Structures are given as structure tokens and as C-alpha cells.
């Protein structure tokens, strides 16, 4: 017995000795050699190994909900059609009994809806299917389909002199599909701004206007602007591209009968001003762009009040008389009622300079806002009955449609689509993510900078270390599970730290989100998958260009055969499958920064910690002159294009 114990002890001691020797002579050396970190305290095996995307929360199945997206009301006002993108369904409900009559399966995440003039055909954009489906409203069955651009989210029907047309906003390919209805074919695909998200047509059908959600890519210290793209639906061509200065996240647009106006809700952003405070709309506020189609002039008007804000303006509708508009506030859980006569009256009295300054005057809105209709969680899309007497409000995270009588502004009832999903922590977390209720004066929500969990394409100036030059590029939350630490400095070890007290102190300027809600919030964020890949072929295989780029990405030698130092190889820091070893590196941009993951990279411009690189190409053509961000100086333009082509497939 004693002998056996002795042997065991000797064996254990030998293992320990070998372990110690390995640590001293191999392991530490391995860590130093492979991680290129001076401080190994935060380096572990999992930085490079043991990562399996299949185990990450976003790779797992999640509960589906009856979240209403697009709405369309039949010409006789008896039916309302509701896109249920999370269910791959379109529902038809009776506007009197407020009951769902039937549902139809429509594959590919049906999102935007439009009816033809007679109400016989329902056109459905399928956001993940990259197609437009046509449903017969008699049978609610799909009768036709056509491929459009990537991620179509909105469609408008218009009757033109050349026949019926459909105008489709393709949010990921940044273009607009113009289709003829009969035959159903694409006539053209003019370019839009960045992330076209909503379409409206003039009452005479001669023009279509497309609101774009993200700002155009401009230098990081330049005042950003999104765009309203004017389209000729007959010729399928772009007519004008109107800039909305310091405005973005427009998700709806609407024509006004009797006036030459297009109305676009927007977020007025102030990303260039140091975030010393949030009071008085210092970070952002909500507004409404009035585009005068006749003159081409744009006025931005505030939707907020001096001491209360109505975050994340989304859907808009205008009644048939052109006298009243309704704007949903997704973060504020209200629908704002605007008297357009009062607004026109104010505009007529104001001089040009006062009109241009209107958006900055937070006490202006009571002069034309006549009511705020409370809703349940996350009102988004709106629709009106043809006579304007009934307003339908899609309460997206409540799984219901609130029906409001527009004379009394009283709720008539709800079309109940689902149970609200409160048993699902991901759904609960999405509610936290989209509410402005945790922010000082309800000024903004998480979603205000991360629409759909993604980026707004802006850099913000945080004042955490004092007022100065602290512009930081907004990073996508899509696919962040497993990529901790967070923040460009890599200071925050978890999403709970990132979104907890730090967020409260730096941005919300309130108490932190309560622990239970914070856990739901981080569960939601972790459930967000990476952005859909833009540049992959249908079969998932790489093209020859992309294959060449892949070889460059994993290259250990330059094209002339010279060894690339390990720390300067792309795949050293951006190691698959997340394409990040989650450690800080100096890449010549002015400090040590956390290594971002590269999943969905193509759609997250601008790049680098302060957003100085407007494109992937610029990272190496403008900001990598010393080869610190990978050895790339040997590449010719074809090789660089190959590399970029590969990166866009990640």
C-alpha cells in the first residue's frame, strides 16, 4: 500500500515537474510568441482555441414571435394585412371584429406590404429572401415572386402613365428595384443612399421618394447626412438625391395630400459634439423632415419637447385630408399627432433663417403637436383606413395592433396576434433594448445607435476622459457573443459590465438598468447573429477572386516569398472562426485597441477605432503605411481587391 502511494506521489510529482517545465520553457514562450502580448494576465487558450460558433447563443434556435411589421389596409377599409416577419407569415384581420381571419406562409421574412389600387394583389417584400412576393387577397396565396436587391424592406405601389409600378427599397444592397406589375419584372435598379428603408409615392404617381436609414459615408469629422432619393418610377431612374443634414434612422416616409410635402421622421444626431451631457438633446433628438417636392427645400422640425423626448421615430401616416399626421415613437411608446395646418401656418410666418433653426428649438413642437397617443411596447408601422377614421398601430414587441379612432383619439381595441412573448428572455431583452424609458428624459434607447442591433455608421465623441478628441466608431452588436472583452479599449470584460453602470454613467445619465432587465438585455444582444453575408454566392462557395483573397488572408509569406512576421499576419489577430483573438493590438491608428471580430464586416463601415477608414480598402491604402496593420505594402491593387473581396464574405 505504502509502495503504491509512493509510486503515485512520484508520478504526480513528475507530472507537476513536467508541467512546470513546460510552463517555464514552452507554455509561457508559446503564449508570448503567439499572442504578442506583453501582459499575459488576460491571455488564455480560448483566445485562439476552443471557439466553436455552433455553441454561441446566436447559433442556437430561438423562440419566434408574432411581431407585426408592415401594415396595409384594404381599399374598402374592411381588412388589414399584417406582415409577421419573425413567423414567415402574412395575416389578414377584420377591422370591425379585430380578429385575425387567416394567415398565409410567406417564406423569407415578409416585412413590407403594399396593395394595388383595387386591393386584389398584396405585394410583400421578403427581407431575408431577397425577393418580392405577390399574394392574391382573395385566397391569400402566393401567386408570383421576383428577385430584387438584397434585404428588401419596403414597397410602394403607384399607378403611372406607363402602367402600374412597384418601388422596392433594398436595404442591404443600397439600391431601389423598380418593377412593372404586369408583367412582373424589374425595370431598373437605381442606386439609393445607404440602407434605403421606406418608400412613398406622390398622389399622382409620378414620383417615388425613398428614405434611407444610414448616413452617407463621409470623413469622421464631417457633418453626416442621410438621403432622400427621388425616383422616376416610369423611367426607373434617380431624379434627385436630397441630403438630410445630421439626420438618420428614417424608417418611414409619407406624401401629404393637398400639399407638395413628403414627411420623413428622423433622428437628429449630434455625434460630433462632445457628449458632456444629454440634456437638451445634446446627443440626439427626434424630428420630422418636410421635403417640399415643388421647391426641393427641406425643413426639419422637432418632435420632442423641452423636457421630454420621444425616441426612435418610426412609422408615419397622413390622413386623406392632408391635415393631420401621426408619427410612431418606437422608444417612447407613443404616437404623436401633428396638426399640419398649424405646422404650415408656423412655417409661413417664420423667416428662412428661423425655419432652418427650427429643429434646434425644443420648445417649438407644442405649436403643432396636438396629442400623444399612448401605446404598448414599441409602436412601429402605422396605417390608416381609407377614410382616415381609424388608425392602426403595430405594437411590434407586444404582438398586437392597436386600433384608434382618430376623431376621439381613443383606443377602440387591439388585434391580438400573439402573447407578447414575455416568457422569452430574448424578447424581454429586446424590449429593454428598444425602450427609451431608462434614459434621462427618455432621450434615446440602445436601439437609437444600434438599429436592429447593428451600427448607425457614426463615430461619437465620449467625454469619459475629459473633453477632447475622443471620437469612437460605433461597433455592431451583431454576432458579439463570445467576442468579449468589449469597448474599443477592451476594458469591459462582459456585456453586463458594458451595458450596466458604465452605460448609465456615460450615456443614459440615470441609474443603471436593473439587474434582471440587464440580464435580459444581454441575453438579447448575445442572441443577435452576425449580419447576413452580402458577397457569398448562393451555394456558399467562394469565387476565384474571393479564394485568392482568402489565400492572402492566411498567407505566411508575401508574393515574393518573404516571410511575413507572425504578428503581422491577418490571421494572427483575426483568427477564425470569429476572426478575432480578442486581444488588444497596435495597428498604427494611435494606440492599443481591441481586435474586432470580422463577421458581417462588409456592412459595418466605417472602420478602425475612430471610423477614419471609410472603406476596407482605405484601411490599407491610407492608414497602414507602416505595415503595422498586417503586411500589405507588397500587394498590388488586384491583390488588395482580392483580399477585400474575401473579407466581404465573412
Amino acid at each position: 500500500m505504502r509502495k503504491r502511494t509512493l509510486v503515485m506521489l512520484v508520478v504526480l510529482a513528475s507530472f507537476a515537474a513536467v508541467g512546470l517545465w513546460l510552463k517555464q520553457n514552452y507554455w509561457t514562450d508559446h503564449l508570448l510568441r503567439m499572442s504578442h502580448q506583453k501582459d499575459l494576465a488576460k491571455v488564455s487558450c480560448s483566445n485562439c482555441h476552443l471557439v466553436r460558433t455552433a455553441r454561441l447563443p446566436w447559433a442556437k434556435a430561438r423562440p419566434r414571435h408574432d411581431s407585426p411589421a408592415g401594415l396595409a389596409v384594404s381599399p374598402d377599409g374592411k381588412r388589414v394585412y399584417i406582415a409577421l416577419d419573425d413567423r414567415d407569415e402574412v395575416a389578414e384581420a377584420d377591422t370591425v371584429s379585430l380578429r385575425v381571419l387567416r394567415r398565409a406562409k410567406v417564406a423569407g421574412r415578409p416585412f413590407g406590404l403594399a396593395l394595388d389600387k383595387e386591393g386584389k394583389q398584396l405585394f410583400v417584400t421578403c427581407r431575408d429572401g431577397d425577393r418580392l412576393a405577390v399574394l392574391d387577397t382573395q385566397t391569400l396565396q402566393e401567386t408570383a415572386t421576383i428577385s430584387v436587391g438584397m434585404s428588401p424592406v419596403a414597397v410602394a405601389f403607384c399607378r403611372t402613365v406607363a402602367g402600374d409600378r412597384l418601388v422596392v427599397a433594398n436595404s442591404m444592397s443600397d439600391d431601389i428595384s423598380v418593377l412593372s406589375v404586369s408583367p412582373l419584372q424589374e425595370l431598373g435598379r437605381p442606386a439609393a443612399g445607404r440602407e434605403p428603408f421606406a418608400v412613398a409615392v406622390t398622389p399622382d404617381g409620378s414620383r417615388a421618394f425613398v428614405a434611407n436609414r444610414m448616413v452617407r459615408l463621409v470623413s469622421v469629422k464631417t457633418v453626416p447626412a442621410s438621403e432622400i432619393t427621388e425616383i422616376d418610377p416610369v423611367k426607373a431612374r434617380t431624379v434627385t438625391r436630397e441630403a438630410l443634414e445630421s439626420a438618420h434612422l428614417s424608417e418611414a416616409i409619407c406624401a401629404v395630400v393637398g400639399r407638395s410635402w413628403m414627411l420623413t421622421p428622423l433622428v437628429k444626431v449630434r455625434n460630433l459634439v462632445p457628449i458632456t451631457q444629454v440634456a437638451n438633446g445634446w446627443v440626439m433628438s427626434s424630428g420630422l423632415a418636410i421635403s417640399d417636392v415643388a421647391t426641393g427645400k427641406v425643413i426639419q422640425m422637432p418632435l420632442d419637447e423641452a423636457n421630454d423626448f420621444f425616441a426612435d421615430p418610426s412609422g408615419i401616416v397622413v390622413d386623406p385630408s392632408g391635415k393631420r399626421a401621426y408619427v410612431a415613437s418606437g422608444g417612447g411608446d407613443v404616437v404623436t399627432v401633428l396638426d399640419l395646418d398649424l405646422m404650415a401656418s408656423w412655417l409661413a410666418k417664420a423667416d428662412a433663417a428661423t425655419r432652418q433653426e427650427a429643429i434646434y428649438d425644443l420648445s417649438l413642437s407644442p405649436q403643432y403637436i396636438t396629442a400623444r397617443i399612448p401605446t404598448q411596447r414599441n409602436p412601429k408601422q402605422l396605417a390608416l383606413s381609407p377614410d382616415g377614421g381609424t388608425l392602426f398601430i403595430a405594437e411590434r414587441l407586444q404582438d398586437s395592433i392597436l386600433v384608434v379612432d382618430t376623431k376621439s383619439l381613443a383606443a377602440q381595441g387591439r388585434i391580438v396576434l400573439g402573447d407578447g412573448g414575455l416568457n422569452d428572455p430574448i424578447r424581454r431583452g429586446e424590449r429593454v433594448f428598444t425602450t427609451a424609458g431608462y434614459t434621462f428624459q427618455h432621450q434615446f434607447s440602445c436601439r437609437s445607435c444600434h438599429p436592429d442591433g447593428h451600427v448607425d455608421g457614426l463615430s461619437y465623441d465620449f467625454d469619459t476622459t475629459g473633453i477632447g478628441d475622443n471620437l469612437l466608431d460605433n461597433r455592431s452588436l451583431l454576432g458579439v457573443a463570445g467576442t468579449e472583452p468589449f469597448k474599443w479599449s477592451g476594458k469591459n470584460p462582459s456585456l453586463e459590465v458594458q451595458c450596466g453602470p458604465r452605460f448609465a454613467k456615460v450615456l443614459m445619465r440615470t441609474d443603471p438598468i436593473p439587474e434582471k432587465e440587464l440580464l435580459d438585455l444581454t441575453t438579447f444582444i448575445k442572441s443577435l447573429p452576425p449580419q447576413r453575408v452580402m458577397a457569398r454566392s448562393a451555394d456558399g462557395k467562394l469565387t476565384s477572386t474571393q479564394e485568392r483573397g482568402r489565400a492572402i488572408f492566411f498567407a505566411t509569406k508575401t508574393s515574393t516569398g518573404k516571410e511575413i512576421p507572425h504578428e503581422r499576419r491577418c490571421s494572427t489577430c483575426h483568427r477564425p472562426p470569429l476572426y478575432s483573438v480578442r486581444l488588444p493590438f497596435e495597428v498604427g491608428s494611435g494606440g492599443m485597441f481591441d481586435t474586432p471580430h470580422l463577421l458581417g464586416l462588409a456592412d459595418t463601415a466605417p472602420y478602425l477605432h475612430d471610423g477614419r477608414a471609410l472603406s476596407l480598402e482605405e484601411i490599407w491604402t491610407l492608414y497602414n503605411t507602416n505595415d503595422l496593420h498586417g503586411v500589405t505594402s507588397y500587394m498590388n491593387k488586384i491583390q488588395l481587391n482580392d483580399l477585400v473581396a474575401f473579407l466581404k464574405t465573412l
Partner: protein
Amino acid sequence: VKTNGHFAISAFCAALLALSNFGCDKSVPPGTLVLTESPARSASSAPADILDLRYPAGSRVVLLYPPYGGGRIQVLSAGLAAAGGPVVSYDGRSILFVGKARSTDDWQIYADDVAEGHFQALTSIPGGAMNPALLPNGDLVFVSPVPKTTETNSPQHRSELFTQPPGGRPQQLTFGSLGIADPTVLSDGRILFVAEDRPGGSTLFTINNDGTEVTAFAAPMASVGTIRQPRQSDDGRVLFLVPTTGGNSFPCGFAKSVRMARPFQSLAPLFPNVTARIRSMQPAGNGELLVCAEGSARPSLTLYRVSPRAADFGAPLFAAPEWDCCEAAEVTPHPQPMGRLSTVDLTKQTGKILCLNVNFSDDSPHHSTPLATQIRIFAEPSPGNVCVLGEVPVQADGSFLAEVPAEVPLGFEALDGNGAVVRREAPMLWVRPGENRACVGCHEPPNRAPRNHRPLAVSVPVPCLSLAKARLAKKKAD
């Protein structure tokens, strides 16, 4: 046997526990009010301070139980020479009020636990404390010292705002040259208070709960005069009183309101058809107000429950012979305001001030004011002792940025190219340690959101202005 024994002991303990709780629920019945009552015929001794005026000797804080006609009351401030100004905690379980143990003592703030039925002093600050309010985290807010009747608005005896955590020491929140009174906590977590910033006039200001971001909330009301008791109502307004009489009795007045949505442009009378003068008003449930107003006979002050849009006050809710009902509040839980994490860094002694465009001013459109090229910043570390901290350049876009000493009143002068003052701000603002304070312009229109541009001042070295250097320079100059 052992198990049975444990069971018996447990049952005995449970029974004891149940018995101890039975009949011991001391929470007050719904509808209970807390009142300040003052003797209707008080002895006319010379008041030493403004609280002596407001709450003459014998004033008391009482609970009034429903039905009010029965007049069943419980005195909460028994044993104090005078008391008043009750404030109910957000959970409805405790009541704060001001009181003085003896007539010669300073006024201090007391808390009464409604369930326990006894009070204790929360403050013992020289000069006394008044106007209690509560932050959502339970910290007490109050004003100190209590102004003497002969010293109201005196710069030598400025009242400041303090906060005090439960069981902790008072911490000063305000450092300006404003005479401060009547703080209340808005639903967004800011402290709203009255600042007597000029003779016979006052302005509503807000600060955060850590003393940062002092900001004018509503228009300077030159035509209105002194204002008192601002309160946020449920219908999105701030209500306040404008006293109409002074002298030896505490003034009553008329109620006015401003809308939160448009505080600088919406001044309006609250009860335009009511002629009775009001002593106090407090939001109650259902959007109504508890109003103590003058009647035609004794007692001179009676309690009403009215809608903010009422044409008249109707019948009194409660009146007691021999007592004036001066103040009233509902003893019930009410919504807790938003909280806020402090941004103050007490390891620092300075803060920063950023102005986006000093030439953006509400007087600019109407006057051909020369453009400012320098900003002179001065401090008033003690009343009347003003010293120039230095001058900082104004950038081409009108912006300037400066590091300034914390917790002293700061004033500003915008200077044109010839060194002439084109715009002046008296020393009434301050920064807290580590605070980054910013403004859109200099005397800019209120409730103004900034333009989205990158101020040039953030790209140049920040001038650091020191009080010590300023004092030294002043000494040399003298």
C-alpha cells in the same frame, strides 16, 4: 422525540411571530393627510428668520385621518416649539418636516416614521436647515442656512443647497451667488429650485443630484417677482406661487404654472377665476391638488382638494377651529423619480467648461454685437471678492474650452477685438470636480439643442485657469 421537539419549538415561534404582528400594522389608512397647522391667533413675537414667519410658535405637523369631518388627528411634532413643511417619502412610510426644539434653536429637519410614530432629527447644521426634499436613493436635500428676516438675499448669507445621505454628513451642492429656496425633485431626477438671482425677482433652476449642470429651467420672471414652492404636477406642468404680500405675516399669493414642454414661453395663471390667495399647494392623487387658501373668516387658512383646472375651490376639505391649515400632503406612496449616477470626481479640483459658440446669443439677431475673440473668466470665491482667473481665446467657430477651479461661482465676459465687453454673465455658475460642462452659446435662447459640429476648441490645448494664480496676480496688482 427530537423531531417532535423541533416541531413544537417551531410552532411556538411561529405563533409568537404571528401574535407579534397581529394588530401591529401601523400603516395609516388610505386618504390620510399630513398637515401643517399654525395657531390661528399666534402670539406676535418678532420673527428671527423666514421660517419663524412661516411657522410661528406652536405650529405643528399632524396626521389627519379620514373622514376629515371627524377631525381625528395625531400630532407628529409633539414636543417641538414649532414645526411645518411636511414632505412624504416615496414609499409613504415616513414624513420629513422642519422643526425647532426650542424657540431659540435653529430650525432643523426631522423625520417621522409613520409606523413607529416617533421622530428624530436628521440634520444639526449651524444656521439651520429648511425645505426638505428627497432624492430617489433616499438622500435628503435641504437648504441651509435659514435666511434671517433681515438678511434675505444678502450675499453674505447665501442659502445653498445640500444633500445628505442617510446617516451621512451634509454635502454642498450649489456654489453660486444665488439665494436658493424651495427645492423639489422632478420626475426626471433633477432638483428644481428657486433662485433669487436679483432683487425682487427669482428664477427656476435645475441641477443634477450631484450639483452638476446648473441650468435655468424657466424664464426669469421680472414681472412676476418672487416665486415660491414649485411643484411638478401630473399633467406636465410646474406649478408655483407668486406671493402678493410681505410684512409680518407669511405671504400668500396666486398660483401660476409653466408647461414642462415650453417652460420659457408658457407662463399662465393656474386658477384664473379664483380670488382667494393661496398659502400652499401640493399635487395629490388623481391629478388633483391639495390647496391651502385664505378664507373670509376664521380660521383664515383652510384646506381644499381641487382640480388644476377648477373654476373655484368649492367647499373646504378640512378646517379646524383655532388652527390655520397651512400645508397639506397625502400620506401615500407616490412615483419615485429617476435616479442618476454621479459624474463628480472628488479626486479632482477642477472642471472644464466648453462653449460651442460664444457669439450665438439671443441678442445676436437683433443687435449688431461685435464678435467676441476672448473670454475673460472670473471667480467669486467669497461674497464680494471677485478675481479674474484669466482670458482664453475664442476659436474661429466661436468655441472656447477652459479648465476652471471647481465649486466657486464663475462669471464670464465676452471681449471683442478691442478688449471691450460685449456680453457679461455674473458669477453665478459653477462646476463640480471633474465636471465637463458645456453650453450652446452665451445667453443663447433657452431649450436649445446644439448644432452638430466639431468645436475647434477641443482640438487645441486646454487653458488651465487657477484660483491660486489669480489671487497671486490680484495681490501683486494691489
